[in-house]
């Protein structure tokens, strides 16, 4: 399993390719319209990306909430719940295409910055507000006379939609190009800000804004995929804490809501005290 985390970049690339397998879409300037689009992918990946073969869970959730048929989406919530309890934020660390893009941007040489804790801590709670307000409340309750709402997060915030869907489609589709207005340029500004911040801060969108990460983080403590520390093997050298790109107090908060399971702590531990485990909680082993 350690090897999987050592080659995490390749796993992320493969996950991105599998999520966006319809590469012909970029040339055609259209999107995939097959039946697989009813299935939600685990990561943040705009379904208007020409290559996308599945539905973005955040977009899908808003699609159901903004319609006038259902006030709640059991299908998408159940899918997110299942992924959350199985993997937690391992999705962020291994499977999310937009997370991978931010990591690649962070590899661009330049001055890397750490956000002061006084600013960082309250900002990390912002993603829960984005989830509650822009993904759940506003699309559900702000509706027109026909009972139809607007996907507020996709419309006003999501830079993944602009990068993966907006730019490729606008470049290849003349009719879309002719209809560009304020919204497009607003979202371009947000995308450019995300890119600029990603170069100097590690995964800023995942830390502060991503509603999908916020949802999965609720399950990090109970998910089947988790990190474990053998306290007898830990020599308190602090290498895990300094290796953690999410700046978590390790090894004390090993399965913190902020942990994206990148496995860097595991690889940094000289004693091999941190391990990855997938499975139900071991009752009997603890009783021994």
């Amino acid at each position: 399993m350690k090897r999987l985390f050592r080659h995490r970049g390749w796993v992320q690339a493969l996950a991105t390719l599998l999520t966006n397998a319809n590469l012909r879409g970029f040339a055609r300037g259209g999107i995939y319209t097959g039946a697989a689009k009813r299935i939600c992918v685990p990561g943040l990946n705009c379904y208007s990306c020409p290559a996308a073969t599945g539905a973005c869970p955040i977009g899908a959730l808003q699609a159901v909430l903004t319609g006038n048929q259902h006030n709640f989406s059991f299908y998408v919530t159940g899918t997110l719940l299942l992924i959350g309890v199985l993997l937690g934020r391992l999705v962020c660390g291994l499977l999310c295409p937009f997370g991978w893009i931010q990591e690649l941007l962070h590899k661009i040489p330049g001055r890397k910055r750490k956000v002061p804790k006084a600013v960082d801590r309250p900002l990390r709670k912002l993603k829960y507000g984005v989830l509650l307000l822009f993904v759940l409340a506003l699309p559900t309750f702000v509706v027109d006379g026909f009972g139809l709402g607007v996907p507020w997060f996709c419309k006003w915030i999501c830079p993944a939609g602009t990068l993966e869907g907006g730019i490729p489609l606008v470049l290849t589709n003349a009719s879309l190009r002719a209809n560009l207005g304020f919204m497009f340029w607003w979202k371009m500004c947000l995308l450019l800000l995300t890119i600029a911040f990603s170069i100097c801060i590690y995964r800023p969108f995942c830390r502060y804004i991503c509603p999908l990460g916020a949802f999965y983080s609720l399950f990090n403590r109970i998910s089947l995929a988790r990190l474990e520390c053998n306290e007898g093997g830990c020599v308190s050298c602090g290498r895990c804490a300094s290796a953690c790109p999410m700046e978590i107090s390790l090894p004390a908060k090993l399965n913190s809501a902020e942990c994206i399971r990148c496995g860097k702590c595991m690889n940094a531990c000289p004693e091999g005290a941190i391990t990855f485990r997938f499975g139900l909680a071991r009752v009997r082993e603890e009783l021994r």
Partner: protein
Amino acid sequence: MRKHWCARRWMQLAAIAAAVGCIALGLARGEAAVVLRKAVFVCLECIGVAG
């Protein structure tokens, strides 16, 4: 310690059961079709072309 691990195991099992139940209920209500109908058209809000 025993209580903690037992609780986590039960929470995992309950969450998996709830998730499977929710997915089945959502499929029965036709929500997957709603998702498909939305996802097969270019989302103008997502790409920033809608006004």
